């Protein structure tokens, strides 16, 4: 497996890592069984994401994609942030090995889930629970990536 220079640079000089203690929205995605768990934290002011951090248990690609995703949404409106796709993330990293593409999907999901969590809280609903991935589904995705 060979990572691009951009992935390595992101991994080496990781930005936005850590926890926001009084976050307005938290997106918890992934599955420790498969080796990747991402927790994305956002702070929101006037519909703009002012701060975004991540905590990731996972490989180099998982750490690089979560770091880049958090960078991308800072300063963006909710609508703009929701438009970011895993494809954008992969392109900005000059590609990922096929078996690592699921990390970028996880980063996109993490952001979307953090925003969903923020919206729920704003409406006075309980925070979103952790999203447990279905192992079978995950493996299925993985097989498709290889083709």
């Amino acid at each position, binding site marked *: 497996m060979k990572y691009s220079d951009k992935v390595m640079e992101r991994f*080496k000089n990781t930005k936005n890592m850590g926890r926001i203690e009084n976050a307005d929205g938290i997106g918890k995605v992934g599955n420790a069984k498969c080796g990747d*768990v991402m927790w994305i934290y956002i702070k929101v002011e006037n519909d703009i994401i002012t701060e975004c951090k991540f905590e*990731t*248990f996972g*490989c180099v690609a998982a750490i690089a994609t979560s770091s880049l995703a958090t960078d991308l949404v800072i300063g963006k409106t909710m609508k703009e942030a929701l438009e970011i796709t895993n494809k954008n993330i992969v392109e900005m990293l000059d590609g990922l090995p096929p078996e690592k593409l699921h990390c970028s999907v996880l980063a996109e999901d993490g952001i979307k889930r953090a925003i969903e969590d923020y919206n729920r809280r704003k409406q006075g609903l309980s925070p979103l629970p952790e999203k447990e991935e279905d192992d079978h589904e995950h493996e299925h995705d*993985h097989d498709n990536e290889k083709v």
Partner: protein
Amino acid sequence: MDKVYYLDNNATTKTDPEVVKAMLPYFSDNYFNPSGVYSAAQDARKDVENARATAAKFLNADPKEIIFTSGGTESDNMAVKGAAYANTDKGRHIITTKIEHHAIINTCKYLEKHGWEVTYLPVDKYGIVDMEELKKAIRKDTVLISVMFANNEIGTIQPIEEIGKIARENNVYFHTDAVQAAGKVKLDVKKLNVDMMSLSAHKFHGPKGVGIFYLKKGVRIHSLSQGGHHENNRRAGTENVPGIIGMAKACEIASAHLDDAPDMARIKALRDRLEKGIIEKIPEVIVNGHPDKRMDNTSNVSIRYIEGEGMLIHMDFEGICASSGSACTSGSLDPSHVLLAIGLDHGTAHGSIRFSLSKYTTDEDVNKVLEVLPPAVVKLRSMSPFWKEKNK
């Protein structure tokens, strides 16, 4: 290339310069095909047969029982498929373990698709096979027991002699994949009661692409490839003469090394210092494998709450070569089957790192790991949700 701190000797070893020196003439001046009738070819034949005698001596075998192959994988295939195909009159049941190398496991899986039944024996938390489970698994139609000598990932050494005895008592062929053990542990096929054994030269400072298959006289197997009458009709194909000569030299050097107690003790002392240092400098570390019944060169540790690949890459930035049981390094989503078999949960297995030493390992190599790994772990844990949750 920048300086490398090489701690991945269970993957491959540096070819001993003496081995390289022994091989070189067989690429240039002595290039002849040993099957030729002219004297130059017959000289090559003589050299190959001398190498066979050396390899036989290394295992306390008869030269007629030594088959040269392309390495561990071919030897393992030869044992499992060869014995399976040749003994269908007795049955189609094979016994192996859950912690074998893929060369055995995937060969067994292949046979399962073609009408054989395979029992994969469990292991305890140290990676040792239960003898009672083994005895219970033997059936009338069992044709082969294949248990690895020493595990490549955690280093655990199986009670091979005892397994061999049980196999003999039950009249079942016994094969051991001794690829990791060769050069680290003394191997005596007679004492060990084995019928077949696999070795690979590049794991004990020999060249890549050449190995040994020990086949006890009288044991029935089919050959895997059809062709010329090489290797006593067991393995068709022109002999890899330079490889065979190099491997014989590596056997000679390894024998001397195994007899040299201070040399062996030095590797163990370095490994122990590395392991102790990691445990002292990093909290929440689990050492995998058996405390004593373990290869002296191998250390496998689970650094909890983080994933292995990140640690490997941080070490690679500083020139350290090691490996991991995490899924990320295997190309699948599951972590190492060995670590799962000894009872680690997925998360812990994903955070496992293997260091494997050799006679070329120095104090400097160990110091470098102890300098680079602890801060890398601190960084990776600082971004791990599980580490934060644990310390809440």
